[in-house]
């Protein structure tokens, strides 16, 4: 997204580079209204279902590696405590996986904001300048952040590495472990079994899957903090945007 459009300079009276994944269309909307429809319903729905699934996965996943103290309510035959914890983990994993595939599908049919988390414009100099600008804002060096309709460039980096790459990693390693219970000859085991040999066996695969969980936990800390902070300190809405889908701007300055 480069600043080459001739009529934009004429319309705005001055040259303002487009920020983030802002388009001319978005800019036109902002000049008329103070809000833009960014996250379509399937994206919002996916976000919250995914968030709930990840929460369940982290809690149950932690407990699968380090189970709760033993409970003895009745004979083992009539008790299924750890079984339910594992069931919740697998069920949430299935929901997360299906949701992730649905989200990938939506990136093809949804609006252009829905594609932002799946790619990084690494060859775009302007984008790198915005990464630096946003970093300066987080280092308290810029007094005023830029306006962003979609993710700001730092958020885009985080989304790409923790969600797009991170979730793929968790889905692949998770199913490589799940394949063991499916057993030899099953489709999952045939496809993902060799991956366990590659990393050094089932035990190692369990450990790197667990390490992946901690990466997701770290993402959750940063993500929730940044969303709330930006909601308060940036020039646009954050938290409510993921509920209503509209990004509302607090000022009408053009850049």
């Amino acid at each position, binding site marked *: 997204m480069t600043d080459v459009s001739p009529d934009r300079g004429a319309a705005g009276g001055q040259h303002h580079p487009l920020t983030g994944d802002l388009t001319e269309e978005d800019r036109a909307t902002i000049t008329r209204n103070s809000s833009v429809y960014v996250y379509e319903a399937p994206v919002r729905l996916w976000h919250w279902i995914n968030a709930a699934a990840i929460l369940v996965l982290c809690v149950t996943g932690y407990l699968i*590696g*380090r*189970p*709760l*103290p*033993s*409970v*003895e309510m009745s004979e*083992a*035959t009539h*008790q*299924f*405590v*750890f*079984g339910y*914890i*594992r069931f919740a983990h697998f069920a949430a994993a299935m929901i997360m996986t299906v949701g992730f595939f649905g989200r990938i599908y939506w990136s093809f049919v949804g609006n252009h904001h829905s594609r932002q988390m799946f790619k990084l414009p690494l060859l775009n100099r302007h984008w790198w300048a915005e990464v630096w600008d946003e970093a300066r804002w*987080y280092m*308290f060096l810029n*007094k005023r952040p830029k306006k962003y309709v979609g993710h700001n460039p730092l958020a885009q980096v985080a989304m790409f590495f923790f969600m797009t790459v991170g979730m793929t990693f968790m889905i692949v390693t998770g199913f490589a472990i799940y394949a*063991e*219970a499916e*057993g*030899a000859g099953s489709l999952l085991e045939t496809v993902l*079994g*060799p991956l366990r*040999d590659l990393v*050094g*066996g*089932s*035990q*190692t695969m*369990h*450990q*790197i899957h*667990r*390490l992946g*969980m*901690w*990466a997701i*936990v*770290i993402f959750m*800390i*940063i993500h929730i*903090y940044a969303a709330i*902070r930006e909601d308060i*300190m940036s020039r646009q809405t954050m938290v409510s945007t993921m509920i209503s889908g509209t990004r509302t701007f607090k000022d009408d300055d053009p850049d």
Partner: protein
Amino acid sequence: MSEPVPEIETFYDVMRRQGITRRSFMKYCSLTASALGLGPAFVPQIAHAMETKPRTPVIWVHGLECTCCSESFIRSAHPLAKDVVLSMISLDYDDTLMAAAGHAAEAAMMDTIEKYKGQYILAVEGNPPLNEDGMFCITGGKPFVEKLKLAASDAKAVISWGACASYGCVQAAKPNPTQATPVHKVITDKPIIKVPGCPPIAEVMTGVITYMLTFDRLPELDRQGRPAMFYGQRIHDKCYRRPHFDAGQFVEEWDDDGARKGFCLYKMGCKGPTTYNACSTVRWNEGVSFPIQSGHGCIGCSEDGFWDHGTFYDRVTDLTQFGVEANADQIGVAAAGVVGAGVAAHAAISALKSAQSKTQTKPTQSKEEA
């Protein structure tokens, strides 16, 4: 095995010569069939093979190892190791079990190689160290790796007995000073069947041999080259303590009530869920018991590199891939702690900064008002 070697007697001949009745022979065939997990329909097939096929010559060599594989092997009950050694195979060379020693023993090996080129099975217990030209393991005055290559060159197939031959075991554990190397990385041009475990289960060892003799081919192997019939499932999948696992009833201490009641050993670090072997079904010592039944978790001895997978007594084990010994939880909690503290500090500075900018703007406003 496919081409007959007339100068060797059939299994049946040898058994009859030892005074075994036809009836006992058929019983033995039935037992072998069930030990291999085959139906009664296979009994006549086994009997037929035993009656018509010549015994297979076997050369059994020992590299860097502790002989626990041999110790296990001689305790096989179904079939009895005695039957295997005396009737089924022609164990022409095994420096641990044979009566001959020294030059006579080495001559026996050379004789077998010469006489049965391409027809004998090479069973390897232990592995060759490759560092210093293999000088860390000398047998018959030569580095073991040379003997292994010589014996393998004319073998029909190679059996890698135990974790040593299959994966390297303790002598190949980091940092592996002698560069002990599993057999399949040294012998690359022969069919190799891995029978891992430290040691492998006796019945699994004799079962593999019986299968090879009966059906004239290697048993179905899995991705890693192990016989699928014995290594197709995890110990956890058939563990008799599995209901306690699903119930969430765990042993928490070695001497607690759960331990006495035979609860699941998962929290004590049992590696059953990550170990492929037949211990929970075939068991040991004529099916008497296996580690979990005896109250100790599985240590995962039939898995690749089991010595390098961290402690035997925790499910969350060290990841040595990062150069430091730390488990996922230690790394994760430390990283999350640093990030959490960073976020808290950042939030505090953000709040201070915004408070500061508000107080700075106030006086200007009041001035303007004035």
